[in-house]
């Protein structure tokens, strides 16, 4: 233990995530220079990464709090359905957005209430609600998708998924803003401190006056809201709602959180780590194909990078 800790030991994890990012980037530049030395691939990343990146940022709070949420892909899909239905009923993107976010908030709050009030494990409850919301979406939509092309006429459309300067996807700006707000809350607000304490030792937090139950309920509620928001963005990007919206995001989102150095044991973790973790995961798929490998390699490389990174963080944590 040193009184004056260096920058590296204080931010060891964040620096390690950055090193993984640069390692992967250099590998891709060497493997496919014509793709990775052009700006277009990065704009493509910035249009796709935010959908699961926003989910991962929000999930980071849940994991730091010592919990897990597996229901967000289904809440994303259900909120997308509500957005589409409300838009077709009102022709207002603003109202549809409001209804959808409220549904996300309600779904998240429901998770929180069941977990906290009935004292049930979050993993089990959210497996249940994952099936519930996915089923509800399928039943209500009849398994059919619906167009959202008329939303393009709304002045709000470019605010969410437009292209700033004709190139920069607006959803990336949303991801950066959300990351900044969550970072601010986690590191400088009383609520963020209580999230860390709850995840580290809920009993200690409770006896020291932290309202652990309220913290956990709010954590699941914000996950519901951000899942709904990601569902709206994903639907608007392709101007179409499809009933299986969100289903491919579960593992990618979790991978971004763990690759970013937030351990499943709770109590620690960073928004910066998850932000970089999402970018690395987003880069991998395109990068592997650009390097001339088939799509079959994607999952193998995902697995390899995640296991190696998490093992590396764990070893570093023990040596600290």
């Amino acid at each position: 233990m040193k009184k004056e800790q260096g920058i590296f030991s204080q931010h060891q994890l964040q620096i390690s995530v950055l090193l993984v990012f640069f390692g992967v980037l250099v590998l891709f530049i060497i493997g496919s220079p014509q793709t990775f030395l052009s700006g277009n691939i990065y704009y493509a990343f910035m249009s796709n990464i935010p959908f699961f990146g926003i989910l991962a940022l929000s999930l980071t709070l849940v994991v730091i709090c010592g919990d897990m949420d597996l229901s967000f892909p289904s809440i994303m899909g259900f909120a997308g359905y509500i957005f589409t239905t409300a838009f077709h009923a009102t022709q207002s993107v603003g109202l549809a957005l409001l209804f959808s976010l409220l549904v996300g908030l309600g779904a998240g709050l429901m998770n929180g209430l069941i977990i906290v009030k009935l004292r049930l494990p979050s993993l089990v409850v959210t497996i249940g609600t994952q099936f519930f919301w996915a089923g509800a979406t399928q039943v209500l939509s009849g398994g059919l998708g619906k167009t959202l092309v008329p939303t393009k006429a709304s002045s709000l459309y470019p605010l969410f998924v437009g292209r700033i300067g004709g190139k920069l996807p607006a959803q990336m700006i949303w991801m950066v803003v959300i990351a900044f707000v969550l970072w601010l809350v986690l590191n400088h607000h009383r609520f963020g401190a209580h999230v860390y304490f709850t995840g580290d030792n809920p009993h200690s937090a409770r006896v020291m006056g932290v309202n652990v139950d309220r913290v956990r309920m709010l954590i699941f509620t914000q996950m519901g809201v951000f899942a709904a928001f990601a569902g709206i963005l994903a639907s608007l990007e392709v101007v179409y709602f499809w009933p299986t919206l969100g289903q491919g995001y579960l593992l990618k989102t979790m991978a971004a959180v763990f690759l970013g150095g937030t351990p499943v044991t709770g109590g620690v973790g960073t928004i910066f780590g998850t932000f970089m973790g999402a970018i690395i995961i987003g880069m991998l798929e395109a990068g592997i194909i650009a390097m001339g490998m088939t799509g079959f390699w994607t999952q193998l490389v995902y697995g390899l990078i995640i296991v190696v990174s998490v093992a590396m963080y764990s070893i570093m944590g023990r040596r600290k």
Partner: protein
Amino acid sequence: MAEPSEVLVKMSNICKSFGHVEVLRNVNFEIGYNEVVGLLGDNGAGKSTLIKTLTGVHHPDRGEIYWKGIKLEDYSVAKARDLGIETVFQERALCEQHTIWRNIFMGREIIKVGGFIDTQKEREETEKIMKELMGFTSSALSVDSEVRDLSGGEKQGVAIARALHFQADLIILDEPTTGLSLSETQKVLSFVEDIKRKGKSAIFITHNIYHVYPVADRIVILDRGRVVGEFEKSEISLEELVNKLYLVAQTGSLNNQGATPSSSGSGKDDLQSLMP
């Protein structure tokens, strides 16, 4: 025994049952100003229930609690803390993966505006606390040291300093020396002496009379939900206290003079278990 006007806390005829099990039976318990009371008793004696009643965790079935002569109504954990009752729990109630300064202000953060924490002030205050209350002058420790890197005695120091910092009038220490080495135990005992020096009161709950005897002003023995003995330290030697504890353990009261550690073959073994 302190006069009523000098009593900080008075628990009067406290009864508490869990289901059919009567855990506290008409317990009368007092703590004076600037007094350290050692609360001794075997497992199941009711020590924890009595303390949890005093800290608002449990509500008594019968009986009253008075704080500085005023009867407490609608008593709760929050109210206990507001009054100035702090507990240093056996498990210390620390978040090990976090820094000392974060732990000192856990649940009572210094807020600037809109719920945002004044981290600068918390760190400065912690620096003062470490020097003045904990006596940590070692260059190996800083406010940014994570609690998991501290020794058991240092962790206990953080927990006690936290209680002292918030100007508690009464600090309850639940088994504060359990699992500590000799030097760490010594450090904790000097923290308890500090509590007394600073004019505060403390309840020291323990199994180990050798730890509590040197720092306590008064010893209260609890057995099976009843107060079975109460002694000013000036009235009883350590050896006499050991004998009395042995009697209580064997017979449940202090009246049977026949059973003493020296007259029983197994007594030595029992006494060994009380040794630090």
